[in-house]
Every structure is written in structure tokens, then in C-alpha cells.
């Protein structure tokens, strides 16, 4: 499948409503496993449906390779049945009046393939998804997870160049979800399809995707590899949306309200001289360490005094809640904590762990490099 390109794609459902998706530029390359990630109502489903052609555009265009499949100003609209894409619905949308086998076979019949080839392909996907034994049942006789696999099989059978999946795992229990994740990853390798996967579950996105596109309120916030998204969030929204427990944000908005904030401001002023208009700084919980004595705090790191107000085990990991006068910081560790609630400790974070954002919440990339160089010098 050639690259899919959305340019300025826009969707507005009603005359008086806000844009469900506005001015979206997105490139989905061949073989990519892309996750659309974002909070509920941010326009993920809408985006997917626009790509599939189930939703027409209010503006912009969509290209597949060099071919324009959807363009408002050009008056082009290629209907979904001609786009050769696969879409697995969140509700599965199996055809209740057809058996599992006929459900899987449906698309192949439409393509008028010879019977032998049809049977072979149906067999192959049914085996791959382990649903062959239900071939003569009707969808209502299957469990949610099994229906889910039929919905996938039905789309894989036609061997689409791109497979669009709308929160396909959200109705499954935790164990089945894990299995299906592994299954999807395997299918991605085996069938070599491009996959666009919608989810609001960040772990799902992190574990599956080769590329993640984070959306909020109809606009694209950042696109990049999972590591990019996590380690170099493009703005405060991405930083705060990805990661659990969420990133610690020190907001420089009102000076003097909190001594950690003041400390951070002083620290950055010292390490990033000349860099103005810093709006806030973020530190991931796992980047924060703690120590009982000043000697144990690594030199050059950003640090301060706090009280431990909570020790929360999460099964293998621990979350520490640290309180400095009127600011709470979270840190996570996988080493059993050696402190009690109420203990006074020092927290610290290495300079390269600080995410610096400007007043509008955008990441200041320049700060990254300079902080990293600080780190290596120490």
C-alpha cells in the first residue's frame, strides 16, 4: 500500500458545532503500525472514518500515493467500497444473518475469486485467528473476544493494503486483551499490512505502535515513535496525557507560590542562562530519585527537601508521594522504598530529565540540548 496522506483534513458534523477534526496533516507510510491516541471525543474515530471514506470531509484532502481519493475543492470522492481498506469496528458489526465462515468469505465473494482460492484464504485466516472451529456458528453464538477475532478475520481475508482498527480491544477483559495485542503484533508482521489503530489507552499505544499520533480536541499534537512521544513530548498536553502516574509539572505562572517552583526557576536560570519565557517544567516520576543525606544527591542535579506523605505499592513498583510546602511530586521506583511515611528526604532529578516548556506549553527544544550537555560535563 502506498503512503496515505491527509492534508488539512477537516470534519464538521453540524452547521453550528465545533470542528470534530480540524486541519489535520497526517502521513501513514507503508508497513507502519500507527496508533491514534487521545482522550475521548478528540476525533480519533472521525479521522479513521474519513480515511475509510465513511465520513466525507468538510475541507482538505486525502491521498493514497499519488491518487486523490477525497478532496473537497477538487470535488473528488472515492467511496469506501473502492478504497480497498479494511476497517474493524469497535462494535465488531458482524453480519448477524451469516455464519462465521460466510462472514469471513463475504469480501472474497464480492471479488469473484475462484472457489478454491477463496476457500484457501478463508481457511488460512480462520486458522491464523483460531476461529476455524466456530465456522458454522452465527455471531450471536460467540463470545465478545471470539466475535472480535471474526471481525479481524473478515477484514484480513480480503488482504487490505491498510487495516483500520477502532478501539478493537476495549471490550475485552485484561487477559484476552493482552493476548490480542500479541496477536495483532504478530499479524502485522505476518501479513505486512499497514495498520492504523485507534485507542485512548496509552499502554496499548506504547506497546503496539511503531508511530503514535497524539490528538486533542480535533487537532494533532505530536507524531512520532513511542519513545519520542514519551521522552520528548512536544507540548504539555502530550507530556501530561502520556505516562502514569502523570508527569510532575512545575508551573512558573505565579512566582513565589511554591518553593520547588522557585528552586526550579533558579536552577534553570543557572543552567540555561539567556533562555527566556520558560512557562513550566516537567519531570517524569521515574526520573526522580530520593536520598536521605545531601551527600547522596548527585552533583548538578535539580533537588530539594520534601516530606514523604505516602508510599503506595502498585505490585512490583512503588509510588512515593512527596510534599514540599504546597506542591506534591510523585516518584516511582521499582526498588522497595527504605523510608517511612513522614520522613524528611531530598528529591533529585538529573538535568537531562527536565522537560522545559514555554509559556504556551510548547517544548523548548533548545533547552534539551543544553541541559544534556550540562549533564555530560558533570
Amino acid at each position: 500500500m502506498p503512503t496515505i496522506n491527509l492534508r488539512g483534513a477537516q470534519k464538521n458534523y453540524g452547521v453550528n458545532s465545533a470542528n470534530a477534526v480540524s486541519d489535520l496533516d497526517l502521513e501513514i507510510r507503508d508497513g507502519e503500525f500507527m496508533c491514534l491516541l487521545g482522550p475521548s471525543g478528540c476525533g480519533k474515530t472521525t479521522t479513521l472514518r474519513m480515511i475509510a471514506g465513511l465520513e466525507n470531509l468538510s475541507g482538505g484532502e486525502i491521498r493514497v500515493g499519488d491518487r486523490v481519493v477525497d478532496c473537497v475543492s477538487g470535488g473528488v470522492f472515492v467511496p469506501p467500497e473502492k478504497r480497498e481498506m479494511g476497517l474493524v469496528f469497535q462494535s465488531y458489526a458482524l453480519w448477524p444473518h451469516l455464519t462465521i465462515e460466510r462472514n469471513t468469505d463475504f469480501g472474497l465473494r464480492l471479488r469473484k475469486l475462484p472457489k478454491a482460492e477463496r476457500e484457501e484464504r478463508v481457511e488460512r485466516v480462520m486458522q491464523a485467528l483460531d476461529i476455524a472451529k466456530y465456522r458454522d456458528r452465527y455471531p450471536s453464538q460467540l463470545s465478545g473476544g471470539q466475535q472480535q477475532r471474526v471481525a479481524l478475520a473478515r477484514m484480513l481475508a480480503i488482504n487490505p493494503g491498510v487495516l483500520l482498527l477502532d478501539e478493537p480491544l476495549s471490550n475485552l477483559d485484561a487477559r484476552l486483551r493482552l493476548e490480542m495485542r500479541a496477536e495483532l503484533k504478530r499479524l502485522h508482521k505476518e501479513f505486512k499490512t499497514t495498520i492504523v489503530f485507534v485507542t485512548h489507552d496509552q499502554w496499548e499505544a506504547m506497546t503496539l505502535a511503531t508511530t503514535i499520533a497524539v490528538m486533542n480536541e480535533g487537532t494533532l499534537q505530536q507524531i512520532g515513535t513511542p519513545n519520542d512521544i514519551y521522552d520528548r513530548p512536544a507540548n504539555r498536553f502530550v507530556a501530561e496525557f502520556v505516562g502514569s502516574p502523570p508527569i510532575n509539572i512545575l508551573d512558573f505562572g505565579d512566582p513565589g507560590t511554591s518553593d520547588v517552583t522557585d528552586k526550579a526557576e533558579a536552577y534553570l536560570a543557572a543552567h540555561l542562562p539567556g533562555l527566556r519565557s520558560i512557562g513550566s517544567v516537567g519531570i517524569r516520576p521515574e526520573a526522580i530519585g530520593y536520598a536521605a543525606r545531601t551527600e547522596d544527591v548527585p552533583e548538578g542535579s535539580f533537588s530539594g527537601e520534601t516530606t514523604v506523605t505516602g508510599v503506595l505499592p502498585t505490585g512490583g513498583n512503588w509510588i512515593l508521594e512527596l510534599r514540599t510546602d504546597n506542591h506534591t511530586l510523585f516518584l516511582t521506583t521499582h526498588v522497595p522504598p527504605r523510608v517511612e511515611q513522614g520522613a524528611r528526604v531530598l528529591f533529585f532529578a538529573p538535568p537531562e530529565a527536565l522537560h522545559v516548556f514555554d509559556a504556551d506549553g510548547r517544548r523548548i527544544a533548545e533547552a534539551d540540548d543544553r541541559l544534556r550537555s550540562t549533564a555530560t560535563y558533570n
Partner: protein
Amino acid sequence: MALLSESAKAVAAANGPAAPTAWQAWRYRLKVALREPTTLIGVLTALLFTYLIVVPIISIVLDAARVQFGHERRLSKDVGEFTLYYLDRVLFSPVSADLFWRPLLNTLSVAMGAILLSLVIGTVLAWLISRTDMFGRRWFATALIVPYMLPAWTFALAWTTLFKNRTVGGQPGWLEAVGLTPPDWLAYGRFPITIILALHYTPFVILLFGSALRRFDSQLEDSARILGARHHQVALQIILPLMRPALLSSMVLIFAKCLGEFGVPYVLGLPVKFEVLSTSLFRSIASRQTGVAGVIAGSIMLIGIITLLIDARLVREARRFVTIGSKGSMDRQSRLGRMRLPAAGFAATVFLMSVGLPLLTLFLSTIMKLPARFTLDNFTLDYWIGRDLDTVALKTGILLSPDLWAAAKNTLTIVGLASVTSGILGLLVGYVVIRTPVRLLSVYLRQVTFLPYLVPGIAFAAAYLSLFAVPRGPMPALYGTVVILVLALIADQMPYASRAGISAMTQLGKDPEEAAQIAGAGWLRRMTSIVIPIQKGSLVTGVLLPFISGIKGLSLFVILAVPSTDVLTTYSLRLVDYHYTQAANAVVLIIAAIAYLGTLITQKLTRTNLAEGLGS
């Protein structure tokens, strides 16, 4: 300049396509809308229903204000010119009392009487069935609905069989035959009509009020009681106010039904010249008073529309109430204690009066030579299967009469054709209403197919007569043909058919179809392999329900049918007119049996609740 436009282009290329102009956006939307036949089908069906529903109504209203054939001389105007003569004649002239005002008063008084009576009986029965431990309440829950499955004038015929006196010719009534001459007020007119309509529409109350009672959350009752309210306080201050929408709604529905009811007042009112609006309309049409008929039909429609608009308001109000109750926390029963048996006795009496007695009377009348003489030699099957009877016309038993079979065949073809067509059209309308991207079309289709619901059948039939009695444009005169009956029936049934179609399509959702679209199926393929197969069940209901209501329907046919296009209902009415009582009763029994069995089969097939098909 050139430089500037070059750089503008570069910017546009970098930022993707420029924002579309209004014209481009419009062209794109048009393209998307016309890509599939949905919109085209929508436009075609919209046109069809405009012609079948809106135009006849407009035509009859225009008739009311235009000079008709035969009146040119008197009004010294040409045919078709504007005139207020008919309006004046119906509403203000010396004959207006006979034509309109007295029938109107009679209609209102009969309807009010029927409403009151059925409310009293119906609410008690509804409560007994749904909230008490009365004996046999499950059985009664079905049995007491039966009167509604039978044509109303079945009861009218049973009544005349019992109470007829010498005012009318033919076989004497049973009471007369045993020497007790019933007075006119008991035999004909307001009293029997009211009673019969009340019994016929009591099931409405039982269904509507009963379902409201069942939905009622008993926690509301309990909380009141915990706060110290006594039984009667709870009933008056909590239950009654919450039940009010259901009660009002059944009142309004019964009124609308009474307004269009023709058979009962025709059979029971005619002998004593007791006229209601529908019979007055019938008389005007029969005497070719087209203009007058237009005014009366228009008035009936107006009253009908107002009534149902009120109902729509009430339903909306009721919905507000429904959200209060949490579901499922009901079904607590009051213990009747010593009253258990008397309560069941009451229900049984109502059943006997409204189903048992009428049907038994009708049946006995068809196998007895002389009325009310219960000796063995008086029983005969001649009226069913006899040959060479000494009657003037109908010389064989009814089952051997070719007229019956002709009427049965007509019924099946006309009603069958109309039901199948309206079932399919209903599904199509549902499809378009739900799927078309053109909102206006969706709204219009929904409204126009609902319109006949607001117009009593008899007025609608009059409208058809007005439009199709003479050739217009390419359309030949249709009066006297099967076509006019089929068309009128289709239009008349569209409210139910389209509502069924819309709700079926709403339930289906768009996912299965979109999934097929993704799999590569074009429109036609999606219809034939996805939509229609999945909707098979609702299509069957959409055909069967109109079929049953068509079989027992009378008011449309009585105006539009001629002897050669007789259906079972009009045939039996013709037999009544000729005083072939036994034969008429036999035909009515056949109709009742078909309607009853049909309803049962539909319910079994679709596992639907009758309450949903209530309006039909």
C-alpha cells in the same frame, strides 16, 4: 504581482489544499449525496407519497370551495370557480343542522360516552391484570384484548341480532322473537353505539394504562408511604398524577378512532336516523354532494389532526415522566384477599359481554332458522353449506356462494397487494430517512408518510374519490377499479409501515452496512445481501400488521368499492342491507376469525407485543 502569486502558490502547496469555496463545498456534498441511489429513491418515494397522500387531501379541500357539476345554474358560476356555497350550506344553512351540527354533536356525545365507559372499565381491569393477584390474570391479559382484534361492527351485528325490533325488516331479533319488543333507544342509536364502541376500545385503555402501571416504579410509592402517606393519599397524589399522561393519551386515541368509526353507527344508527359525522359524510358522497362531502371530510380531518396533535404533546409529556422510573423494580402485586374471586368474576363478565356473547350470538344466528328458538329441528347448517334455499337471491349457503369467494379473492389480492407494497415501501422509507445525507428529505418523508394517521379513513377515502373519480392528466378515472382501493390502502397504511421501517433501520444501526461497504459491497449488493436479509423479520411484520387491519377495515372500502370490487367487509355490509342476516353474520365471523388468527400468528412469529401495533 507575479512574484506574489508565485509565493502564494508555494504557501498553498506547503500547507495542503486551500480552503474550499462555498461552491466547491456544495458541489462536493452534492456528489457525495448522489453517489448512491439512496437520495434518488428518497426523492422518488417523496414524490409518490406527495401524489398519494398530500394531493388527495388538497383536492378534497379544494372541492369544498369550488363549484361542482350540477350546481352551475344555481350558483350562476362555472364549474371549478371559487365559492363559499358549500361551506355556508354545511355550517350555516337551514340544512346545516342535519348535515353537520347534529352529527357532530352525536359524534362528540357517543365518543365521550365511550371514552368514559371504557376508562372506567379499562383502568380497573388494567390494575387487576398488572398489579394484583387476581385469578387467571395472565389469561385475562390476552383474552381482554381480543375485542380489539375483531372488527367493531361485529358487535353491532351481534347487537342487532339480539335487540332488533320491527323498525327494520328481515328476521326479527331474539328478544322480539320471544315476545319482548325492545324499545328503539335500546335497539338502535346512541345507546348501543356508545356501549359497543366502549367495549371495543377498552383494550386500548388496558394496554396503555397497564403498561404505564407496569413501568411505574413502586419505590416512588414506597417512599411516599415511608413519609407517612396513607393508601388513598398515595393513589391520589403519587400514582394518579404519574398515570395522567397514559390516561389522557388513551382518551385522545379513542376519540380519534371514534371520529372515523363508520360500521357501527351505520348498522345501528341508520334505522332511527341517528347520524354521526362519518355516516353524514357517507350520505353526502352517496348522493353525489361532492362539495358538501368536501366540507364534512375537511372538518373531520381538522378535528382528527387537532386531536392527534394533542396526543403528540401528551406523549412527549409522558416521556418526561417515564425517565423518572428506574426499570425493573416493579411487579409488586397487591393482595386482593377476599376480593380475589369477585375481581376475577368482574373480568370474566367483561370478557363474556365483549367477546363471548357477541360471537356466540353471531354464530348461533347462522345455524338457526328462526331466531331464539332452541329446539333441535330449528338448527341447520343451510346458511353455511345449504343448497337450493327458498331465498330471493342468495340461494346457497354462504360457503357455497361464488360471491363470497369472489369477495375473499378480492380481499386477498387487494389487501395483500397493498400490504406487501406498503411493507416494502415502509422499509425503503425507513432506509432513506435514516441514511440520506439530505436532512430535508428525511424530515419530509417522515412527516408525509405519517400524515394519513391524522386523517380518519373515511375522510381519506372521500379524498381519494375526489381526486381519482375523474380522469386527470395522464391518470384515467380509477373509481370502480381495484387500483384505487390498493392505492388508498397503501397510503392509509403508510404511517404504520414507515414507522416500522424507521424503527427497524434505527435498531439495525449503520455498522453492518458500513462493514459491508468496507468489504467492497456496492449499494445494490448491500441491500440484497445485508439489509434485506437482516430486516426479514420486520418486513414480515410490516406486511402482516397492515394486512390484518386491512382485512377488517371498512371505512375505506365502503366509499371506494363497487359490487365488482367487493371485499369481505363491504360484502357483508351489502348482505346486511339486503337483510340476509345469517349470511352477513357468517361473513363477519369469517373476517373475525382471519383477523384474530392473523394477529396471533404475527405475535408468535415476531414475538412482538400487541401494544406496539396498537394504532393499526
